[in-house]
């Protein structure tokens, strides 16, 4: 690890100011950034910790929308969203292990946009909004490919809003080593239609499987998608799974999520 400065502001304004400095980078729970720095693959000059900003923490639900502060840990979401949005809370409860869940934050996860992370599927599947210090970004516009988002340099996720569906479920098929999603599918049944978001599988990162969404919107049952398939050509391939295998799993996991969502 290279030397760096650590600042721990208590307000969003102070954090944004600190982030305007040279080579400054926000630090959430550090579950990706710190190991990367230990390997000397990242060398930020200043880390701006979000964990001291009270306004960026917490979970609240009203009017069919769940709002989660950007510095809220997965463990907190798992507990505090359990009654208002059980599908999302269950997803958060199964990210990594207890150590990861007690440090990793939703803002950190969404800003990093790891192609095998769970939260991108949760947000894209739910539909909602990423709230930053300067604007609001629709979930459908936020994810822009592997490790790429609509965030600008120095922009900080202060909160995330999820549209709470009538029913939802997330099915993660774990990569055997990392236990990230080899394929993860978040299915959300809203009053105006079904959303299906897939993580772990595509070379383009998280995506909506629109064909399945249409089929499920008219018939919310596993049978509705049994004849559908995802094109393997855009899927990732590695030692843990071929593109064909991942494409197959998208269908299987979607069916299981629909069944579990009821």
């Amino acid at each position, binding site marked *: 690890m290279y030397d760096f400065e650590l600042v721990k502001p208590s307000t969003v304004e102070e954090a944004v100011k600190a982030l305007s400095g040279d080579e400054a980078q926000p630090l959430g729970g550090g579950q990706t950034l710190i190991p990367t720095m230990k390997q000397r693959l990242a060398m930020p000059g200043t880390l701006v910790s979000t964990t001291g900003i009270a306004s960026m923490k917490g979970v609240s639900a009203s009017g069919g929308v769940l709002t989660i502060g950007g510095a809220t840990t997965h463990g907190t979401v798992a507990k505090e969203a359990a009654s208002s949005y059980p599908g999302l809370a269950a997803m958060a409860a199964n990210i990594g292990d207890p150590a990861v869940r007690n440090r990793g934050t939703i803002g950190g996860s969404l800003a990093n946009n790891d192609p095998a992370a769970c939260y991108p599927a949760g947000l894209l599947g739910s539909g909602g909004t990423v709230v930053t210090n300067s604007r609001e970004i629709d979930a459908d516009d936020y994810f822009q490919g592997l490790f790429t988002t609509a965030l600008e340099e120095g922009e900080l996720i202060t909160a995330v809003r999820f549209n709470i569906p009538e029913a939802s479920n997330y099915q993660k098929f774990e990569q*055997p080593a990392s236990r990230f999603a080899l394929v993860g599918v978040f299915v959300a049944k809203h009053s105006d239609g079904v959303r299906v978001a897939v993580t772990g599988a595509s070379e383009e990162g998280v995506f909506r499987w629109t064909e399945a969404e249409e089929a499920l919107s008219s018939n919310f049952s596993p049978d509705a998608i049994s004849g559908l398939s995802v094109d393997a050509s855009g899927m990732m391939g*590695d*030692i843990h799974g071929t593109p064909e295998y991942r494409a197959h799993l998208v269908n299987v996991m979607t069916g299981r999520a629909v069944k579990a969502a009821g």
Partner: protein
Amino acid sequence: MPKDHGIGASTKRREDVRFLTGKGRYTDDINIRGQAYVHFLRSDVAHGKINAVGTSEAETAPGVLRVFTGKDFEGVGGIPCGWQITDRQGNPMQEPAHPVLAQGKVRHVGDPIAAVVAETYEQARDAAEKINLDITELPAVMNMKAALEDGAPKVHDDLTSNLCYDWGFIEDNREAVDQAIKSAHHVTTLELVNQRLVANPMEPRVAIGDYASYSDESTLYTTSQNPHVIRLLMGAFVLGIPEHKLRVVAPDVGGGFGSKIFHYAEEAFCTFAAKQLKCPVKWTSSRSEAFMTDAHGRDHVTRIELALDAEGNFQAIRTETYANMGAYLSTFSTSVPTYLHGTLMAGNYKTPNIYVNVKAVFSNTVPVDAYRGAGRPEATFQLERVIDKAAREMGIDPVEIRRKNFVTEFPYATPVAVEYDTGDYNATMDKALEIADWDGFDARAAESAKKGLWRGRGINTYIEACGIAPSALVGQLGARAGLYESATVRVNATGGLVVMTGSHSHGQGHETAFPQVIAEMIGIDESMVEIVHGDTANTPMGMGTYGSRSLAVGGSAMVRATEKIIAKAKKIAAHLMEAAPEDVELKDGQFSIAGTDKSVAWGDVCLAAYVPHNYPLEELEPGLEETAFYDPANFTYPAGAYICEVEVDPDTGKVRIDRFAAADDFGNVVNPMIVEGQVHGGLAQGIGQALLEGCAYDDSGQLISGSYMDYAMPRADDVPSYSVDHSCQTPCTHNPLGVKGCGEAGAIGSPPAVVNAVVDALQRNGKDVTHIDMPLSPSRVWAAMNG
């Protein structure tokens, strides 16, 4: 009723108190005043010509004491190989140089090019980034068969090819084997890969070199399973330090699985640099470095043929194996695919004709060496897989075909040069079938089917050669070391004992089990016996711990030394009781004369030995301390039968192990709880190999599975609750304890059971799948189902 002390008691492990409360003293816990830190600059290409290593900028970086390169080691010896193999033509193997720091070429990702020693670790690492490397990348030698083709790029330019040796075992068997296969009723052939594994002990390697100028003595603190072996290899072959000026200390060792047997370049470097710089030099491996520098395991590609008669009796076995050596020959690398593998190809069966051919190949990968089981898992896996395939092809029950071919009379001389002293393979088979509830399978399969899951079961037996090894025999086979073990038993004046042994624990529980043996022999409390190990300065020359040898060989040395102690103590007791020594009996810590009321306590005899006021000084030296070296007459042959039941998810290919039964014959058992723990650990490791673990390189020689993000270690929820039994006991006939060794059995016996079970599940559900290469990841199983 189970015993509560001594041999056969499940005495709780005394060392666990410190391990579990953070009080263990591992090598990295040692910090010497004034120590410097080394960071190794390692190759990031698999194969390359070193044109220049520019160190001037690094040398002037803050805190840097010195930057070493391969040039600094030109007058220094290379890392030696401990076993010379003779090939089919009678020629010695090709043996390349292995410099401490790379000279001329780099040969695998991770090969050390330069070493920066600085006041802090961060300074060393910062400075290493200032080294200017000029390396011309060369084509990487990755595929073993391609490596042996004419015109293939060579890993070592001064060798004639990438072939280390082409070994035939036993060459004289070859013609009869070929003939038996040609004329057989049925021949089953199987091609398979025994994949490359990374040992991954919990504690990464550490080395600290220290030099005392006042006495011209060097000390190496290191994470080693065998400090005396390191002292011998490093002192005699690398650095030229006589053993009386070199001390090697391995304190608590946090797992090894074989990977800490070997002498590594970093050990030699730290010892060398400490003397050059006149300050202690410390290296602590990162986990990333461990992946690319700890010797890897397995990596065999094998074709096996099994010939049978019409009744399913085995007629002949012929194998051809390509064994990956990696870029250099690690300490025992050459013996693993040969004498630790070929000698076990008979398995538990009386096959009359066996021929094993092994081609050992250099490649641009991390060196490969012994890993839990070392050669024996490779033998067991191919044999038990091909038997399973043969049974299926011939329509014979998998239990029946094994029973039909079991060796049942002992001693049994195999066609591959070893003699099994004892065993009862039907007994362990019966026990395995019982504890696995073999007959209840159909009902469980029906339950699985209701959940949409495919249940399958796999069975296999295994045998291993442990208690390594008779020195004269292994000497004839090319070993450059003896494989005896030693013990000094020192009785103190107040009756307590200190046992100094060349065996060394890296988690096995020696500090508990060894005292059980000695306490039983004397009839005293186990707490009166202390085990000292891991330091060449205070233990007799010994060969360390691997090959499930510590109790069978090291324990035997302790028994011999304790027998000498008892014999002398009886003479002292006889003097005190004014009786003849041959009339003295020792029981429960009391010496007595049969038929009289005379007795004297153990403690009084010990005191008399050191305070010899009333003592036969004219006949007997004072003191009570004895040493024994024990060289085994034969290997020991633990054996058993394992049964695995799996559920396969047909939608995803995911395998879940539902039940696993292991019935082992370890001979006599000193501590059943420790034995059970060893089996559990071995099973987890074998299941890890079968389902999860796999070291992967790409074609350019980059290590793809270089971290736990891609190298899948077994976790608690990957393994079932095991049914383990070791009540079938045929004691070893040639060591004093009748013990055989239990450390590797689980890892040897379990992979074929798992693969047999998965293939069975697929076959029962109409999939014509005869083999899947490990690890049986969901992706591979799904591909096999849909292939």
